[in-house]
């Protein structure tokens, strides 16, 4: 066990006791709790709900929100929705990639940052938008990127 608390997994499973079609909701809750879907959680769900592991993996790999890799201390989400795209989102993404030396979907080796791309956060008026740990940074310019990243240790 990589330090995940099996009781938390059980608690989440218990929330949905007896309901139909809950697997995606359950995995979303696990993702919210641990920031990723640890292997142990998948084993536990499979065991308790009698769902084949292959089925759970199929879902976990299909949906973008669900991640099978641990997430760094800070999650960066760069919006590349159409509005942010035409307002220079890709330049911001490039800057962050170069600064951190990682690609979309990756985590820095020191586990400081995970970088993800999202398609529209619904606040296009602020575009280009970068969300770090739930804090929205709006109208970001390439030269501001360095300063913003430095705020997160």
């Amino acid at each position: 066990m990589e330090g995940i608390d099996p009781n938390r997994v059980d608690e989440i499973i218990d929330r949905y006791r007896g309901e139909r079609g809950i697997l995606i909701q359950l995995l979303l809750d696990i993702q919210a709790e641990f920031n990723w879907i640890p292997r142990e959680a998948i084993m536990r769900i499979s065991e308790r709900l009698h769902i084949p592991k292959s089925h759970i993996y199929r879902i976990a790999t299909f949906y973008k929100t669900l991640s099978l890799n641990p997430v760094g201390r800070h999650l960066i989400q760069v919006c590349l929705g159409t509005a942010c795209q035409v307002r220079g989102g890709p330049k911001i993404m490039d800057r962050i990639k170069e600064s951190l030396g990682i690609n979309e979907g990756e985590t820095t080796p020191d586990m400081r940052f995970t970088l993800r791309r999202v398609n529209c956060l619904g606040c296009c008026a602020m575009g280009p938008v970068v969300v770090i740990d739930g804090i929205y940074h709006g109208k970001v310019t390439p030269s501001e990127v360095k300063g913003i990243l430095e705020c997160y240790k």
Partner: protein
Amino acid sequence: MARIRSKKDLLKLQESILAERRVDKPLITLCSGTACCATGSDAVAEAIKAELKKQNLDVVFRRTGCHGFCERGPILTIYPQGICYLNVKPEDIPEIINRTVKSNEIIDRLLYTDPNTGKRIAKESEIPFYKYQTRLVLGDNVRIDPRNIDDYIAIGGYQALAKALEDMTPEQVLEEVKKANLRGRGGGGFPAGRKWEATRNAPGEPKYVVVNCDEGDPGAYMDRSLMEGNPHRVLEGLIIGAYAIGAHHGFVYVRQEYPLAVKNLTIALDQAREYGFLGEDILGSGFQFDVCIHRGAGAFVSGESSALMTAIEGKVGEPRPKYIHTSESGIWEKPSDLNNVETWANVPLIIQRGADWFRSIGTEHSKGTKIFSLVGAVNNTGLVEVPMGTTLRDIIYKIGGGIRDGKKFKAVQTGGPSGGVIPAQYLDAPVDFDELTMLGSMMGSGGMIVMDEDTCIVDIARYFVDFLCDESCGKCVPCREGLKRMREILDRIVAGRGREGDIELLKEIAQVMKRASLCALGTTAANPTLSTIRYFHDEYEAHIKEMRCPALVCKDLISYYIQPDKCIACLLCLKNCPSGAIEGGKRKIHVIDQTKCIKCGICYEVCPPKARAVVKISGKPVPPPLPESEREITKRKK
């Protein structure tokens, strides 16, 4: 809260809520949608509460949903005067309360200034962005606190439901919606009444009704604003629809990226249950109905109807062939009706004010209003609700305030990844379902992304193909492989490696995808590419034949260059360049080492406006660097 058992009860409750709320009391409202929360609405709210408490003032404070004018949020309005302040900050609050709320003075600097006339406008309704809209669906967002059902009841909420349940049979409700010719707001524009009828008549029980709040179209957020700002309105429409169809269970599918929508909807459901708008024996009619929320886990294709229904079953949200209609076999293979958020939100209006009234708005085949999310290179980003048939020019210029930074309009993209671009020569086209389709685009969910001369049209086509390539579920070959090949071709065109015949090849692949794909993701996936080829053929040619990007966007086709006669040797670009590609010094003209340049554009961004020395060059060679000896600036520049 007591359960409400009849229309009479509901009217009585409305009266008592209104009586309790003395209208003579001053009221401050503050918008609190996602965008405004991100720009500091929470801090402003705290400041207001603290100040009211400190001064012990008898003022009502209400946090409302999104006003739609997100460009200028947070927006604070003071009633009864209706004075509207934009971009409010916490430090403005004491002044607002002392001067405006207490002494009725107007603070000029917080008002909207007309960019053309310089006139300041105090009333929200007079601001052009709002003035030219017809906000039948969105309008209530500014009047209510979405977390307080009493606010909704106070403005007549749930009375359409009461009318439907008490005065109308399910058949009559269905007829009314059919007569209104309400067309689906989520994509294809299919008549809602016909879909309801098919579900109603399909054999099999139970039946399900579903709200599609997946809103996968990147750049569109009207569904989010409705769900966050007025969830009861959507819910009321859904209950009415369930009654007409004969469904007793409903689902709301909300994308996970919209946490505030999920939260406000959850609260709304609880409150509706307490009053008896959900559950057993709704409003004493004997009709029974309840709803649960299903969060989407992030997959564009899961917004498609059959895919969404499989996702609700807890499976991988992939579409299936269209010959099995979801109205006959949807969730758990039972008859299911799916409609978009905005479609449902129109239903109470139709029931309350009648199909004839609804039909009086809009064009011949597209009735009512439509909400657009006007974004991109436009001055007033925000949500715009106008009658069907309004021209693009009115939307973009009258309401949207024209193009940012005085740039030139190039095209507007509608319909999201399934839609297309519309160039300047069609600005006077009336916007409705059929007209947009004729122009090679579509209505889609109402995203409207304005592009100026700085947008590369080939890059936009590549962007959508890239998006769809990522989102294609891979179940059918034409979509999976077609998109991949299209991406390869577009990638090489924007990289300056385009070949003769690439445009024809793109068109050919598009044809196959259109005919042979399994779901609408694939059949419409080529639209952005086809429409850009149709209207901007010369830009494709420039990329392929001249290796030139006319909009100066494509990284591989442009170079940054500092014009020696304009450089003021301010050191800004040199200090900011992340790859140390700029040589220079004090009073020494700066020069970019093209071999080190990574084309991040920071030098272009930071070069002071008075100098504007950095330029982008495409399609021709960069002038050789100035010899070292000529770089000294001797004369002071004026």
